[in-house]
């Protein structure tokens, strides 16, 4: 045990002594979370909108007025015909063109149905989808107001209640995602080279002839990083709460405990990468180039997992960040407790054990 503690201490010094690397390790998460927390949003604040009104009646004008009075839509010009749409998009002058069919008010009155078109620049489907949604919302509002004004309402009325995030801020969605991504990548990267570096510098032999058991070596490599990574957990959670105002409706202690578990998973994954690769280069490529995009894309950070095709949903199960994301959003936004999150917690736990076991096993093979 004494030897083990000495070993952990040595590893610890190793990390802290390299000032430059230490600065990067602790500075980077703060900088990235601040930068992305402000920049990664999916609200669109200025929709440059063109109007192609083939009817020019009171209704189309009322809708147009309503559109531009919301503040989100910015008038970008009137179009005279469909032919003008293409050049407007090609030049990037407009994000959207709203088209009203001829005799719009008349048809609405007579048939109860009038048609309008929302044409968006589909080369960015993200913006298209958001902008279309906004426009639809404005039109629904208009109709609702009309209905309120006329007699009393008849029929069923669906009263929506937006839970957990009433103002639909995307910051609440993305900040937890950023936390997961940053913690995952930084932690995995830290340990992924810890063993390969020893292999390359030749100090591995020293470790091998020492009387430390493989489990002790593996755990000894993880523990110092666990302590250091926890510093990152604290800063990242504090930034989310204090700077971005993401509420923490659940238990803070639980949030920290789960975060600790998650970095443990990431560090173990790093160690596993370290034991199965033979050079620092390969280890770093696997932990960086191999983890970056899957963590961003398959964790539910930006793209909802339930929107994906089933094979991808299956693959997403092996991404640790996916589970942590559910946990963070659950605790912070929904105030969920362990009773709800036990499945995700258990998954991370199992992953950690598997990664560790695989590392120890691979490491022992080397000993023989």
């Amino acid at each position, binding site marked *: 045990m004494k030897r083990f503690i000495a070993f952990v201490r040595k590893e610890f010094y190793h990390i802290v002594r390299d000032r430059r690397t230490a600065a990067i390790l602790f500075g980077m998460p703060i900088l990235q979370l601040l930068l992305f927390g402000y920049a990664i949003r999916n609200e669109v604040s200025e929709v440059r909108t063109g109007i192609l009104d083939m009817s020019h009646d009171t209704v189309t004008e009322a809708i147009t007025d309503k559109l531009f009075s919301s503040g989100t839509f910015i008038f970008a010009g009137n179009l005279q015909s469909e032919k003008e749409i293409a050049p407007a998009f090609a030049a990037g002058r407009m994000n959207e063109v709203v088209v009203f069919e001829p005799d719009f008010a008349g048809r609405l009155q007579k048939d109860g149905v009038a048609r*309008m078109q929302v044409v968006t620049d589909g080369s960015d489907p993200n913006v298209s989808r958001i902008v279309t949604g906004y426009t639809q919302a404005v039109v629904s509002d208009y109709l609702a107001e009309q209905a309120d004004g006329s007699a009393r309402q008849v029929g069923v009325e669906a009263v929506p209640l937006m839970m957990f995030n009433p103002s639909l801020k995307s910051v609440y969605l993305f900040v937890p995602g950023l936390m997961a991504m940053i913690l995952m990548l930084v932690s995995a990267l830290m340990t992924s080279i810890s063993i390969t570096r020893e292999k390359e510098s030749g100090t591995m032999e020293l470790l091998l002839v020492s009387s430390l058991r493989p489990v002790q070596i593996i755990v000894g490599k993880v523990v110092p990083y666990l302590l250091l990574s926890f510093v990152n957990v604290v800063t990242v959670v504090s930034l989310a709460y204090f700077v971005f105002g993401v509420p923490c409706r659940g238990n803070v202690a639980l949030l920290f405990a789960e975060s600790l578990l998650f970095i443990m998973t990431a560090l173990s994954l790093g160690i596993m990468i370290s034991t199965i690769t033979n050079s620092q280069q390969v280890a770093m490529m696997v932990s960086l180039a191999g983890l*970056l995009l899957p963590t961003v894309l398959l964790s539910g950070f930006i793209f909802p997992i339930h929107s994906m095709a089933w094979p991808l949903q299956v693959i997403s199960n092996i991404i640790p960040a996916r589970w942590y994301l559910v946990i963070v959003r659950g605790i912070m936004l929904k105030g969920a407790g362990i009773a709800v999150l036990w499945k995700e917690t258990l998954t991370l736990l199992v992953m950690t054990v598997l990664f560790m076991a695989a590392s120890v096993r691979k490491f022992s093979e080397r000993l023989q």
Partner: protein
Amino acid sequence: MKERIDKVRKSLTVVAHLLRKEFLQIFRNKGMLPIMFVMPFIQLIILANAATFDVPEVPFHLQDFDRTALSDRLVKRFTSTGYFKMTGESFRQGNAIGVLTGNRADMVLTIPKDFEQEMMTTGHAQVQLLIDAEDGFTAGVIQGYANDIVTAFNRDLPELLPQLAGTQIVQPVIDIQSRGWYNPELVYIDYMVPGVLVVLVTLIGLFLSGMNVVREKEIGTIDQINVTPIRRWQFITGKLLPFWIIALGELTVGLIIARAIFHVPMLGHYYVIYLVAAIYLLVVLGMGLLISTVTESQQQAMFIAWFFIVIFVLLSGLFTPIQSMPHWAQNLTLANPVRHFVDIMRRVMLKGSNLGDIAKPFGILGLEAVVMLALAVNRYRKTSE
């Protein structure tokens, strides 16, 4: 004149020797080959599919406190359209939020007691939609689906409740057709494939070049090179070219995959893409070599490279719109080479833009290439201070 040509030839021979050596080393590194040549394409094929905001069947939970014929009809409306899928039912007040917290449904539909009664007597009744708005965008879509269903239900009400016949309950409807120009069905694949491809090529290029020089420092071979009369530009060129060639090769494979597997349209010209790629890669690799020359260990180099890559990727407009960013961040992205190349790829492939259309981002890339290469050559010192 002849002497001059001879000198140039000799000079290039040195570069060729360096090139040869780098290629030998790259292809001899067995552990690295699959990471360079297999992993990116697996990622491309799998991950390009992941990006979608489609909201498929929304799982919803039902709390029907009325349990009448009418409430049943309304519920059937929800379950029969294909937009909603019922995952559970309960009859206890206050249970609804627990359902959302536990992620067992994205919406809870609550039909109050006396729903039918109210409808018959007053012609008006409310139901409640409790929507999980963690993801605001999805929440909006769910609300839209629900409204459509309720509206359609209202239209059929006179048939269900004869006493309502004759009252004007048909609310006027504005039918909104949405259409994406260039991409009518808003297919995400077309949009994601070029972007993901750019990111993968960038990852490989930046990481490999970033580790390269500093690795020679770690092993000690850099001194052996530095005592030779090799020139700085020869050194940087010899280090840069192998990765430049490999990256262009990977881009080519990626474009073939885009075409053959994903059927991404190619409205523009390939030569435009390659011309831009040639310059773009100089920016990326120049930056990698710069990082490599100023760092002391591969680990440091990788941390720094990683730091930039994550910023480049997340602020590239690939996943979230640049338009959504605050103005200062939008300005920041003007310096982001990934942003420009993703933008150019999409424009050339999906809109058929030609060189003239992309002159501005192309110009920025050219400028960055010059700066990066100059810095890389300049920061590489054969004599340490």
